[in-house]
């Protein structure tokens, strides 16, 4: 339960931090995150 609380607090903090980012930084992060799932297969190319 404690672990869940800690994770929830961290996620909340990250969300608040993200909300304060300017539009261009959000676009930068969004672009990277959208490709994160491809990193493992790309490593084998």
């Amino acid at each position, binding site marked *: 339960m404690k672990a869940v609380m800690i994770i929830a607090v961290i996620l909340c903090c990250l969300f608040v931090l993200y909300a304060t980012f300017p539009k261009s930084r959000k676009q930068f992060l969004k672009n990277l995150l959208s490709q*994160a799932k491809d990193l493992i297969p790309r490593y084998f190319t």
Partner: protein
Amino acid sequence: MSDYDVIVIGAGIGGLCAGALLAHQGRKVLVLEQAPRVGGCCSTYEWNGYKIDIGASIIEFPQVINWAFERMGTTFQKEVDLIAVDPTFTARLHDGTEITFPIDLDKTKEEIRKLAPEDVRGWEKYSQEMDGFLKAALDGFFVTPARSLWDVCKLFAKTPTLLKYGSLFFGSYEGVLRKYLKNEKLLEALSFHSFYCGLPPALLPGHFSMIPYAEHGGIYYARGGMIGIPLGLQKCGERKGMEVRLNATVEKVIVENRTARAVKLSDGTVISAKIIVSNINSKKLYTEMIDQSNISRLARAGYKSYRYSMATPMIYLCLDYAPPLKDHHTLMTVPMQKMNDYWFDHYEKGEFPAEQFGILSWTTRSDPSLAPPGHHIIAVTLAPGPYRLKGTTWDNEKETIMQNVIRFLESRYLPGLRDHIVHADFSTPVDFEKRLLSPEGAIYALRQDLTNAMMFRPSAKSKQIRGLYLVGASTHPGGGVPTVTASGMIAADLIGKYES
């Protein structure tokens, strides 16, 4: 017994560089090129006495290209007649303001002082930071393979000063520039450089923000047209027996037991070799030209996941007057935010508005011999063009779009232009694809964001097929004339190491 030691598919800069270096290693090399000329995106064609550059219009980082020539016992300057271009560029901003960036950093500082006195200190700090980063990057990054996490660790261990600049890799081009500069006009002048690497300022990784600074190390044009650079590499290779065959399209790479054995040309000819070096887009290579049974499922997913880089529509203008420009490069800019918005609101939605930004490359400013006396050439590099136009096709819209853009150029930058056009040609993303066999006209092959870089970009030594090596923009370190030259050096080194 193979016909050749090495077959290089594609006579782009990377292919010719690798081929020439391998010929100097004493190998029997054949370079196959589908086009009627060498050079790929760094090439020149002739029209009625005008020599027109297809893509690249200057080179930066001449020292990197020189390394390749030095390995062959000569120098870049000896093999290619280079013309120094100074200033690096003049930016004509959206409101008509002009700012020029001379090669000399002190003179540039004075220009900045006139436009944005509050940013002089910021420019100094930016220059200092980029100078340090560039030295570290040139030391380690450019000609070191980055095929695995281990390679990348070795790279940083070899050049520990790179660690100091680690934060550059995790921010954006825009973020880095905004850290040092506040004046929106100055930022606008430096924004378009992000498209030199294929992405808008908001998406391009921050380490590329060294490009505007790097230009102050010297930029050059090859006398007679940019094809002079690939021809210089070809000449060096041919001295050691390298053979270049033009108009020879490779259809398939023949692989047996996960080992590259030969290539099959479009006319059915099969030519065998111990090693195949591919200078074609690696996504196309692995997904269309190699039997899929030779590639693991995970790697197949990886190749499919790559996104092609942007395409750059270009208009080539042959003129019977000297255009009212000042320098070899004039950047037509819009505010940084608008460049980002263009990417998301137009480019990604398949739209190509006539009100453009980009570069006017006045090549005859540097080399008047490119055109008949009194005549001139401008190559207009436009904003990124979507490969698929919304609701129509490039072939349908080509003429209309070209005329609209010419009208726009006339109204904003080149008064009287239409009365002086002898010849105009428009190379759309589809034309680039047809002429260069570059899928979707992608001039940097694959996108150059962090998730497509180093160990996440297709490896110079194939991880799937023995005896297969990659060069060009779709492998490390990426797109651009010096970088693809570096890819040729990396491949030649790896072949020297693993294929003795």
